């Protein structure tokens, strides 16, 4: 059976070049980077190199990179750490309604600590209107966190426009770039933000490593207290092999970004265009143009996403029905609901996230495999039965 992995938003495979770069650090160069002897030197040098590679990916200064254990940790660190560091100035935080749970739930934790959180709505394509951000900003707003792109619907947000608003008011602005860094161009100066999260496993790097970029001079409270690693901002023995892998993946992402985008975009467009042609009552979710290069997301009416996912899996196709970390939760995606979709339609969410291994044939295989699956599930669906009786019966 054909095997087609189309769940690159959940995690990407590790490039062999990245694995090769990591190997020495799973072998002879095993020292602790904090150690002052020769065994520490190799690890420390490797980390410095990786820091430069990651910094170059986002056109930042290496000193401004803090390595973390995941995109989630970067987001928790940024949201809680920036808010807690500025709390003398105010206790109001602004986020969008479609942030990843690592931002939203961090904001909820801040509420428990006495902060107030305002959510900026999005339009039907999942776009945050900068004017709506402005409307939420108050005198005591000390943090704005709006994602660069949403992993579920692929929409890219107007970060530079929002940054203009926050900069004028000197409010620290964090963006969750986990879905974009290493995939589309990310330049911290052009974005105009003050802090930015990224994660290795989104762009063919290892799991278990992320980074937070934070502009020099912006104060942050550590999430992980302890030793003096990362200039005292993130304690704990560093995950050297994963950090090396992140660095290598960043270097490769920078080098090949244009080519990768050129490869993915037509495949994505083909899927976005063809699938609704082959299956009735399918809605494309997210922005038609301003979306991630490999990201095609839909809602299939009258049926539920997980069952589509499982039947596609039985045909060798890996997809997701929402963000991976909520895949076993039951509720409809907060992202789709925020975009104004009904729960009924939101339950039919299915997303194809393409990677550099995908080909035209993969997409054709999906286009061929999916209609009978949808058909089969609709035959089982009481909602479809009702729809057929009323609307179709009425024809």
């Amino acid at each position, binding site marked *: 059976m054909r095997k087609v992995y189309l769940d690159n938003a959940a995690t990407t495979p590790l490039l062999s070049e990245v694995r090769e770069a990591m190997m020495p650090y799973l072998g002879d160069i095993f020292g602790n980077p904090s150690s002052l002897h020769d065994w520490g030197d190799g690890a420390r040098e490797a980390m410095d190199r990786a820091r430069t590679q990651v910094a170059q990916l986002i056109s930042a200064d290496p000193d401004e990179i803090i390595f973390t254990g995941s995109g989630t940790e970067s987001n928790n660190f940024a949201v809680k750490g920036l808010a807690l560091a500025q709390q003398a100035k105010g206790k109001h935080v602004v986020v969008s309604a479609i942030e990843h749970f690592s931002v939203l739930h961090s904001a909820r934790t801040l509420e428990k600590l006495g902060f107030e959180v305002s959510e900026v709505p999005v339009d039907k394509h999942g776009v945050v209107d900068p004017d709506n951000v402005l409307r939420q900003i108050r005198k005591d707003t000390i943090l704005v966190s709006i994602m660069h792109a949403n992993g579920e619907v692929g929409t890219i947000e107007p970060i530079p426009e929002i940054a203009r608003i926050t900069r004028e008011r000197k409010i620290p602005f964090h963006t969750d770039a986990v879905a974009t860094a290493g995939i589309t161009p990310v330049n911290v100066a052009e974005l105009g933000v003050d802090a930015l999260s990224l994660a290795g496993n989104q762009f063919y790097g290892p799991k278990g490593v992320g980074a937070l970029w934070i502009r020099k001079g912006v104060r942050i409270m550590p999430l992980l207290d302890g030793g003096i690693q990362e200039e005292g901002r993130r304690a704990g023995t560093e995950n050297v092999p994963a950090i090396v892998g992140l660095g290598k993946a960043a270097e490769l992402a920078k080098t090949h970004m244009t080519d990768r985008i050129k490869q993915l975009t037509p495949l994505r467009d083909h899927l976005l265009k063809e699938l609704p042609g082959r299956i009735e009552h399918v809605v494309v979710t997210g922005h038609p143009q301003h979306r991630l290069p490999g990201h095609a997301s839909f809602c299939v009416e009258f049926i539920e996403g997980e069952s589509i996912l499982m039947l596609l899996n*039985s045909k060798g196709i890996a997809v997701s029905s929402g963000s991976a970390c909520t895949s*076993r939760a039951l509720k409809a995606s907060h992202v789709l609901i925020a975009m104004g979709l009904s*729960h*009924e339609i939101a339950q039919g969410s299915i997303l194809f996230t393409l990677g550099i291994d995908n080909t035209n044939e993969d997409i054709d295989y999906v286009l061929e495999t999916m209609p009978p699956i949808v058909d089969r599930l609709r*035959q089982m669906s*009481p909602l479809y*039965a009702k729809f057929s009786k009323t609307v179709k019966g009425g024809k």
Partner: protein
Amino acid sequence: MPVYSEKVMDHFMNPRNVGEIENPDGVGEVGNPVCGDMMTFYVKVKDNRLEDVKFRTFGCGAAIAVSSMVSEMAKGKTLEKAMKITPRSVADKLEGLPKQKFHCSNLGAQALNKAIKDYLSKKKGGGKK
């Protein structure tokens, strides 16, 4: 351990008794798309037994497998025995369900129950007529 047992996968991939009974003796509908699952059960009763059971389900893999299993367990049983099908017994027959999916087995037993009660109340109503 994979998310679903082999039994769940079997019932999901090859669900038994999918569909609708024409002129059913009872219909039970539970759930709604907001909570993520929705099931409609149809029963045909003969001599106090469930001669036929069919269902339609909107929902996750577990919801479909549970519906199928409930229909299989119920078919041929007396009404009394069918009404004793519990969420636990459904989950057990399916060789377990993930914690977050246990509510699906609740729904399945509920929908069957509702269909039987529908039949009973109609019979009562019908008897009165």
